[in-house]
């Protein structure tokens, strides 16, 4: 028996895997939701924390997690980010130093496909599909051989796949972008999973066309459930083009956003929704949840999850007059790049600045 909880932390990612052996956390976004969850499930021992990449909405919660004296963290896995200069990154290094020295937390400065061996559990396998060790050696901001595009921190996102009894169940690709996807597919041409936590909260995949990117990703993953971990109030996610790509490549899939996007409903429901599960969710305040926190249970032939598809879709039907996942949105956003006839955007210098400055 095992569970994977995809927390509604607003804009950001955080998932917790629990099995008979213990718990593993994958990314830790801003705020208190993770801590509330751990308290509710009485989890005080965490075997490992896996960090896809060091953007604030994936690491800020780790800072607080490490500061909880009653929670024992066994190990933290994350990749080197030479170019990152943010204050948050520096604060995390301080917190890691403290945790390592005082509380014997093992800090692994690598989370690549090689790390999978260190993460082996019983019936559950935590696979790291990307980056490959060689790509990690190049590092964010670096140039892989063969005149390929520079690697951004997003492209370097660790891609985690949860495999239960040899069935690939969940794919958690951090903020993977089109460049990262190409590297992933070079190693794993068919990264199947029944559940996909869509990368970058359904935001833009750097310079690639959002619709193409979404369609390509969904075509190779072939998920039945596609989750968008978003905030209603920030960043105007998911991008309509992304949803369009998902609908096109995975027409039967259940699309579930943690919160109700402003794109789908101008107003929030006045009463708390009834379809949500009992787990903490950031969107509980102000009734901002759409699917809220999503919890998957494995162990049977088909995994089940809450909130159930039917009750979630009934909620969307009722409360989201312009729901993108129902094809109701107009899909007309003001996008200056999407010129007439879908013309190519002007070419620019390669690569992204990696750190926040």
């Amino acid at each position, binding site marked *: 028996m095992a569970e994977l909880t995809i927390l509604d932390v607003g804009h950001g990612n955080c998932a917790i895997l629990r099995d008979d052996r213990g718990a593993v956390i994958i990314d830790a976004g*801003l*705020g*208190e*939701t993770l*801590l*509330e969850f751990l308290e509710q499930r009485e989890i005080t021992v965490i075997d490992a924390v896996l960090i896809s990449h060091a953007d*604030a909405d994936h690491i*800020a*919660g780790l*800072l*607080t997690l*490490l*500061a*909880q*004296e009653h929670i024992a963290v066994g190990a933290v896995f994350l990749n080197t980010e030479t170019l990152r200069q*943010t*204050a*948050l990154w*520096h*604060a*995390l*290094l*301080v*917190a890691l*130093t*403290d945790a390592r*020295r005082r509380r014997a937390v093992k800090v692994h400065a690598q989370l690549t496909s090689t790390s999978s061996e260190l993460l082996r559990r019983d019936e559950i396998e935590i696979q790291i599909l990307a980056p490959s060790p060689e790509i990690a050696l190049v590092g964010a901001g670096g140039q892989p051989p063969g005149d390929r595009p520079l690697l951004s921190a997003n492209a370097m996102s660790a891609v985690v796949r949860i495999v239960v009894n040899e069935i690939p169940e969940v794919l958690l690709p951090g903020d993977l972008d089109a460049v990262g996807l190409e590297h992933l597919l070079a190693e794993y041409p068919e990264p199947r999973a029944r559940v996909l936590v869509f990368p970058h909260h359904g935001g833009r995949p750097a310079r690639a066309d959002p619709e193409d990117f979404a369609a390509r990703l969904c075509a190779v993953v072939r998920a039945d459930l596609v989750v968008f971990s978003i905030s209603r109030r920030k960043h105007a996610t998911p991008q309509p083009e992304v949803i369009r790509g998902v609908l096109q490549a995975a027409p039967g899939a259940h699309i579930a956003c943690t919160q109700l996007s402003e794109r789908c409903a101008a107003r929030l429901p006045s009463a708390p929704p009834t379809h949500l599960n009992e787990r*903490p969710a*950031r969107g*509980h*305040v102000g009734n901002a949840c759409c699917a809220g926190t999503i919890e998957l249970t494995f162990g049977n032939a088909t995994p089940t999850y809450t909130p159930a598809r039917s009750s979630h879709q009934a909620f969307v039907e009722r409360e989201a007059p312009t729901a993108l996942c129902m094809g109701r949105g107009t899909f007309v956003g003001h996008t200056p790049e999407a010129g007439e006839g879908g013309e190519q955007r002007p070419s620019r210098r390669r690569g992204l600045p990696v750190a926040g400055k």
Partner: protein
Amino acid sequence: MMVAEPEIRRVAIVDDDPSQADVMSELIRDAGYEPIILGPRFEHVDDLVSKIRKSADAAICDHRLQPRGFARFNGAEAVAALFEVSVPSILVTQYIDIDADVSIRRWRRHVPVLLSRDEADPDRILQGLNQCVRELRGEHLASRRPWRTLIQVDDTNQESGEQVVDAHIPSWNPHLAVRFPAALVPPGLNLAPGAYLFAKVNIGADRAEDLYLFDFERAPDPESEGVLLG
């Protein structure tokens, strides 16, 4: 086991401006309570607290009580003192932008509900008092629960004659510095720009004005704690 709630019937109004107090009493009446206006002036916060305990079940306090010589303390201090003796109370201020950082933040740990004056309608008052009652029972909203976390000093400054600290609370928002009075930090902790501290903070807060900080502790100093401790 369910414990019966002490029912709120009378709500004390603490406001240095008599006409504002009258306005508030109308709102309280519409919220379904009996308003009781207190005055004329209070020397010490304990005087106010004991008067409220005698005459009312809850209170709603204006923050700025000093300008007209109404009291020698401010409303935030009064609400915090009332919290200590389990009287549910709401703090109201016209100038949330100006007061939140320093004079309110100092007491904010024990001020469950802060409303700006134009938000204070009967519904919000009702909700607010209910929230106070729950918090007095130890049931915090997610936005009010404190968690130990790492913070980083940005700078120290002076505001309204008081030393204040601007610090980042990265787990709450890594891009915004939050200001609070230096008096909250015990002496001896390093407040130099760039220094790290542990503190308990309600990192689930939505707005900066709802944040409170306490239980500051020394955090490792990456500069000086090098070889010898290694």
